[in-house]
């Protein structure tokens, strides 16, 4: 049997999927709406709704005697939030988050630069593997592993002792604020673990941003007389800035909200995450817990606004 085309226009397929295909081809917006509706509903109702509920909670207060929530609008909880001990928690957490972000960016940039500019083929695959590999194992396992590494009897101390450099660790631990009895119970330990755990979230966005910078822009800058340092400052850095900002949003907000790392590795002083955990759990002070969570939201909002004003997103 020979196939003869009867008409230049092929007949519609009689199946439901055939009819659907034609329908969606004619009304692409319907398909888009079907795809977008579930995530938009999720984002709009579940996410924004609970965020709004959270915000609302922070304007209530708790009755100190009965422990019951007093559903009347008040700023008392925020007054409590700004008390000296709570402010201390906020300052500690924000400083830690800022430092973790800064150091992560400094460490991540050269790695991301290598991956974007030089790594090809299997080296690129190896790079992705190396960056992502830590994310495959449990977060808790990694933190406990670090506790062992940093402990007084841990491998780091042992290694430094072998090199006769133990005095270096002791000198560092004798410093105020960053020091302590051992690395695993000092802010230094908390800091090291934070930087380690969030590193992939800094490397990947910077790498993606650098990947999009055409190589000939670097050549053009050099051609016009820009030294490598000037090229970095005026071309590479501004064009990588959206990636750095994206990465810093991850490291900054993750540090602001984390309550497990400072609990396992570090001093006994609280971070925001731990305060929220304690307030909503044992203390049962939901309004104060809510007020604490508002802090990272406000800080991130202010940070993004500043980044935008500085032109971080101009190159997008």
């Amino acid at each position: 049997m020979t196939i003869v085309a009867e008409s230049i226009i092929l007949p519609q397929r009689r199946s439901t999927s055939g009819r659907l295909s034609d329908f969606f081809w004619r009304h692409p917006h319907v398909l888009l709406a079907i795809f977008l509706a579930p995530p938009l509903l999720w984002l709009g109702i579940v996410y924004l709704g609970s965020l709004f509920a959270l915000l609302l909670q922070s304007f209530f207060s708790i009755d100190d005697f009965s422990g019951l929530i007093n559903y009347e609008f008040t700023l008392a909880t925020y007054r409590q939030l700004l008390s000296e001990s709570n402010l201390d928690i906020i300052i500690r957490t924000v400083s830690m988050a800022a430092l973790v972000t800064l150091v992560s960016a400094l460490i991540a940039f050269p790695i991301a630069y290598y991956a974007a500019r030089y790594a090809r083929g299997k080296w690129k695959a190896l790079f992705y593997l190396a960056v992502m590999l830590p994310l495959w194992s449990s977060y808790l396992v990694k933190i406990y592993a670090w506790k062992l590494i940093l402990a007084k009897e841990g491998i780091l101390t042992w290694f430094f002792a072998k090199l006769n450099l133990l005095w270096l660790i002791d000198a560092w631990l004798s410093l105020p604020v960053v020091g302590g009895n051992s690395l695993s119970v000092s802010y230094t330990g908390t800091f090291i673990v934070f930087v380690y755990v969030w590193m992939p979230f800094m490397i990947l966005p910077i790498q993606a941003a650098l990947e999009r910078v055409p190589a000939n822009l670097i050549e053009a800058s050099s051609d016009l007389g820009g030294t490598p340092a000037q090229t970095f400052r005026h071309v590479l850095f501004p064009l990588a800035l959206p990636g750095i900002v994206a990465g810093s949003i991850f490291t900054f907000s993750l540090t602001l909200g984390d309550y497990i790392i400072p609990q396992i590795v570090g001093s006994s002083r609280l971070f925001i995450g731990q305060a929220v955990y304690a307030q909503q759990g044992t203390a049962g002070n939901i309004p104060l817990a809510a007020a604490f969570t508002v802090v990272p939201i406000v800080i991130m909002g202010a940070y993004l606004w500043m980044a935008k004003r500085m032109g971080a997103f101009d190159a997008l």
Partner: protein
Amino acid sequence: MTAVLFDNVSRYFGAVRAVDRVNLEIAEGEFFAMLGPSGSGKTTCLRLMAGFEQPTGGHIEIFGETAEGVPPYRRSVNTVFQDYALFPHLSILDNVAYGLMVKGVGREERRRAAEDALAMVKLPGYGTRRPGQLSGGQRQRVALARALVNKPKVLLLDEPLGALDLKLREQMQEELKTLQKSLGITFVFVTHDQGEALSMADRIAVFNEGRIQQLGSPEEVYNRPQTRFVADFVGSSNVLSEDLCRRLGLKASFASLRPEAVAIAPPSDGALSLSGTVASQSFLGATNRIVIDVEGARIAVASPAARGVPAVGSPVTISFAAHDLHPMEDA
């Protein structure tokens, strides 16, 4: 004075000889074109001049000074990139002023210089825009202004007109040539478009497989190609085989014959002639391109359109002057 000197310069990428023992000398104030197909080594030569590549062997001098090991930012040489390479995060003014900025020229002075440069390329008042808001032709001019504002000794242009449409390209060719004459800067121009090279350059180097096939004025390269490659690449000359050459009384193994030097007519005094049949014909506007089959060899004739066209398959006699037949090396 010699602006750029290549002494036996090679650049290998692994086993690939991108540039293979190239010698050339570009005079100051010259408009020099490097012509060749893609992968012929012309762009690598340009990048060697800019300093983006370092030679594997040989010696490069720019205005008498050794260029090997000198980074691009220490060369008084500027480049107009093929896809312009404008900085997307900077305004047009900041793009043009970039070279002055990194050299530490004051804000007011470099703004004035950049505005002058923009006026020179006929884009006055475009300073506040972003590269993304400009058309291809405008971006090309900005790239030119950005290079020229530095007053380079040598301006390198890497297929700068490749992305423009025909009309704009012809206009820019005209403007580039005028600009070069008025500024007196040495222009080194890379192109794969033989028409562009012929119309703009003072001298042309024809590249193939990493080597210079022929170096000379546009007239020399066009009228007297020295190798088969040049004859073929520059304006599609007829290449006459050894057989035909011998029949015409020529001792060379190959000879070139330009299509426009051939007439479909019986020979007049002293002219050479061949007879064959019309194989095909096509209308090119000012001329007709008629291909004549001479015992298996195909010879193209550019015949004025006003003259009639013989039917395909009809026998014809073609004739040409002996001095239009140029012997070539076998390459």
